[in-house]
């Protein structure tokens, strides 16, 4: 590493860095390399890629801006960060669309070479923001990134395209300087990534070093940041995105249950990564079927479930709509099935690359007839692993479809993940019928759990028929008898409600009574918890209940809601969970805080809302 000039080092508890540029500028790679180096330096972190729906929108336009945000900290990092301390902008359009996410006083590192008249105009600026004084509240570093990248490569290449593509590495070098990071781990990662093209690795390394040494000479960078190591639970860690964690959770459940994994799925943003990830793991026996549509995705999974697989389908909101009828079939046939819905902004095509929690009603109620299913929700990118595992465990042991709700932020975002040992994961025991069991009947139920047995085709002595028509209790022949239908409807409902005996009780962060209970569910846990903890530090009587089990609710739900002057439910929709609570626990008055902008909660807006309620007389 280059010798560093003596500059002031500022110690910070956490810092948010955002890389933004044109979609071809390599921002995702810069962000990933930086977050990996932060993880190796012992920081906790959360990341989020923010990319446009278009693959390559017109060059230098707002529509084509792609970003990657990294939040690193010396204590537990709950969110991907509200506003950034450092913003790297590779062109005028990315600066224009992201400046609102920069804190006042933030360091802006811009590629000054990219601010030519044409690009400035395309971004919608009237004058050059680097010169017109509009950025004076920020610490602006006008770095000639394009030209210096080119210069640094004179000995290695004369290809301008290569220099153009390496600009992101120059910016990364500057960031490494600002955060006192060493290159070793990044260089190793680059060597591994470009194993077959050592020349490319060399070019990247050279440019990173050039960026670093440039930063060393910039007077405006009078100080650098130091983020102390986070105090994290001892163990082995890796970085993981929510979608990969979901895929791995399903694979882990397959291993612990002894049932082979089958995924039937159709590509859809932002859930496709689950399909792609599982496609890679044939060595673990995973059978992945890329279906002709969403309906075939779930129907193939239902066929595989009938046949004895741990059957799953992955999708996002519009896909869940298409699967509705088939979910009803899985309810009726009482087959295990995991449906992963990585929620995005809706309705219809909506905001495919943005995140929302607006599919809760659909998950709970979006089917014809009385069709209860279990609904659970992951709350962080890393715990998608455990909730996918849990969804599979419930589905297999209770012979029911389970909808697992995650969202675009969890799915695409990444977090540090403490690697579990498989022997510590719970065993999964599906209720398999035994060959030649003389008492086997398709709809004979366990008297405690109301669960029927799973008789797999191919097994001796268990031939039977199931289907979407109502079946006679126990024997399973087609029945239109009115009282039998009532009985079967009740059984299906009781079976799902009974799952409450097998899930953890609801916990509270904070006191069991006080002025305010803040409720969240799903992917907003980090932001809401951060806001609550901040107010708790100020001595306010605020507690937090985060729900991961939605249908059924934990058994003690009614109990934990007691004892607060106010209950506030925060969610990224117009009030779906709060209305569900009003329906299931009507004895309380609920206040609600909603946001439907395709964006996550920021901690600051939650604090404002919480304080507002606390100050109400």
């Amino acid at each position, binding site marked *: 590493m280059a010798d560093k000039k003596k500059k002031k080092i500022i110690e910070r508890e956490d810092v948010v860095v955002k890389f933004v540029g044109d979609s071809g500028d390599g921002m995702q790679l810069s962000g990933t390399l930086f977050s990996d180096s932060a993880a190796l330096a012992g920081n906790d972190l959360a990341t989020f890629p923010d990319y446009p729906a278009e693959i390559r929108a017109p060059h230098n336009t707002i529509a084509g801006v792609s970003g990657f945000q990294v939040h690193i900290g010396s204590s537990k990092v709950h969110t991907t960060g509200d506003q950034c301390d450092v913003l790297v902008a590779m062109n005028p359009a990315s600066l224009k669309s992201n400046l609102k996410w920069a804190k006042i006083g933030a360091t802006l590192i811009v590629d000054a070479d990219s601010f030519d008249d044409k690009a400035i105009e395309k971004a919608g600026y009237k004058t050059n923001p680097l010169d017109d004084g509009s950025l004076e509240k920020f610490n602006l570093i006008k770095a000639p990134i394009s030209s210096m990248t080119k210069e640094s490569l004179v000995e290695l290449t004369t290809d301008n395209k290569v220099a153009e593509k390496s600009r992101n590495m120059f910016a990364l070098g500057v960031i490494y300087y600002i955060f006192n990071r060493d290159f070793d781990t990044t260089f190793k990662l680059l060597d591994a990534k470009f194993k077959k093209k050592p020349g490319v690795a060399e070019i990247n390394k050279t440019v990173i070093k050039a960026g670093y040494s440039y930063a060393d000479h910039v007077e405006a960078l009078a100080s650098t940041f130091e983020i102390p190591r986070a105090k994290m639970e001892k163990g*082995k860690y890796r970085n993981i995105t929510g979608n990969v964690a979901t895929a791995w959770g399903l694979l882990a459940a397959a291993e612990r249950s002894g049932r082979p994994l089958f995924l039937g799925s159709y590509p859809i943003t932002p859930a496709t990564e689950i399909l792609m990830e599982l496609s890679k793991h044939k060595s673990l026996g995973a*059978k992945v079927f890329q279906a002709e549509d969403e*309906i075939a995705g779930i129907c*193939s999974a239902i*066929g595989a479930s009938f046949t004895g697989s741990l059957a799953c389908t992955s999708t996002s909101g519009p896909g869940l709509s298409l699967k509705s009828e088939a979910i009803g079939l899985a309810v009726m046939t009482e087959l295990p099935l995991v449906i992963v819905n990585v929620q995005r902004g809706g309705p219809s095509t909506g905001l495919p690359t943005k995140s929302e929690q607006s599919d809760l009603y659909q998950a709970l109620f979006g089917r014809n007839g009385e069709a209860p299913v279990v609904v659970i929700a992951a709350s962080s990118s890393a715990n998608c692993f455990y909730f996918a595992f849990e969804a599979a465990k419930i589905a297999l042991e209770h012979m029911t479809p389970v909808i697992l709700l995650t969202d675009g932020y969890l799915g695409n975002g990444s977090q540090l993940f403490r690697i579990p040992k498989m022997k510590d994961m719970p065993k999964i025991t599906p209720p398999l019928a035994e060959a030649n069991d003389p008492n086997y009947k398709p709809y004979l139920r366990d008297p405690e759990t109301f669960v029927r047995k799973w008789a797999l085709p*191919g097994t001796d002595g268990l031939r039977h028929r199931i289907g979407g028509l109502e079946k006679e209790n126990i024997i399973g022949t087609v029945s239109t008898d009115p009282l039998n239908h009532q009985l079967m409807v009740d059984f299906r409902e009781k079976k799902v409600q009974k799952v409450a005996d097998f899930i953890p009780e609801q916990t509270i962060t904070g006191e069991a009574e006080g002025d305010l209970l803040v409720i969240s569910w799903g992917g907003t846990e980090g932001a809401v918890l951060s806001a609550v903890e901040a107010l708790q530090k100020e001595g306010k009587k605020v507690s937090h209940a985060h729900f991961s089990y939605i249908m059924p609710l934990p058994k003690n739900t009614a109990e934990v809601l007691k004892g607060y002057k106010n209950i506030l439910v925060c969610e990224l929709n117009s009030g779906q969970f709060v209305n569900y609570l009003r329906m299931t626990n009507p004895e309380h008055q609920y206040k609600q805080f909603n946001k439907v902008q395709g964006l996550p909660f920021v901690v600051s807006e939650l604090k404002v809302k919480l304080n507002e309620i606390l100050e109400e007389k």
Partner: protein
Amino acid sequence: MENYTVERSKVELTKEDFVSDQMVKWCPGCGAHAILSSVANVFPKIGYRKENFCMVSGIGCSSRFPYYVNTYGFHSIHGRAAAISSGVKISNPHLSVWMATGDGDSMAIGGNHFIHIIRRNIDINIILFNNQIYGLTKGQYSPTTPMGSVTKTSPQGTIEHPFNPGELILGAQGTFFARAVDTNVRMMTEVMFEAARHDGTSVIEILQNCIIFADKTHAQITSKDLRDDHQIHLKNGEPMLFGAGKTKGIRLNGTRLEVVEIGKDGITEDDIMVHDQYEMDPGVHLMLAKMSPPHLPMAFGVIRSAMYPTYDDLVEEQIRYAKENSKIKNMDDLLNSGDTWDIE
């Protein structure tokens, strides 16, 4: 490549092994009864363990089928039998999977799944009951109803061009297509046996009579006075002869098929085409599938049976290869793969 075959029965099975205890609720005189009888005939002949048969269906009259045979069965939802069967077969390739479906179930609401299962060549046997009408909803026109037909939803006659299922199947790159009529149990049994032998998606179109809503819809082909001249029963390796005394034959004239008479205008049997069901090129098979009266007879029997790898075999092959060659043998391997680090 390893062959993922279905286990054979150790004992000889009979028709009784597949009789279900359920009352068959099709209309008296419905063609479906004969199809059921043919399936019960052919399953014991195929010789697999009875537990290895799995019958899947969608919705419609045809789709009540699984209740009437004693196998593992799944009566699903409208149009989706092909997708469900795909999951069944991929999940457990050791099952002999049969699908009962109709012209509405497969050509309309399930059209997408139908063409894709065929394209993938998943080893499933599809019995397509083509009665050219929606029976269970009581008489609306279907995608195979002849143009101009008066039905409950076409009081002035349909204005839609019907599908010829054979064309659709071959267009979807079908590897097996056979046709039979519901009045000929021997023929149905024969083609079902051939379908079971074929590796890949086998489709058997059965011209079925709906006695209530489209009675005699196939009369031009099946009636006693016309059938000799309007049907040709194809046999692999044999000349394409038909007619009461087998005096007529099919000849390729330029790019078209035509009917010729042996002994007339110097025509001998040598001029008649010989059927090759195993030909990879579907060109002639398509022409045969399209034949229909009045100018040409309709073709019956196995029209195409071409050998291509099946999807389900390839899935097993990829898994076998991955298991042998990947360093990731279990979940602990996967969790600890790639970049990891210890925090003390």
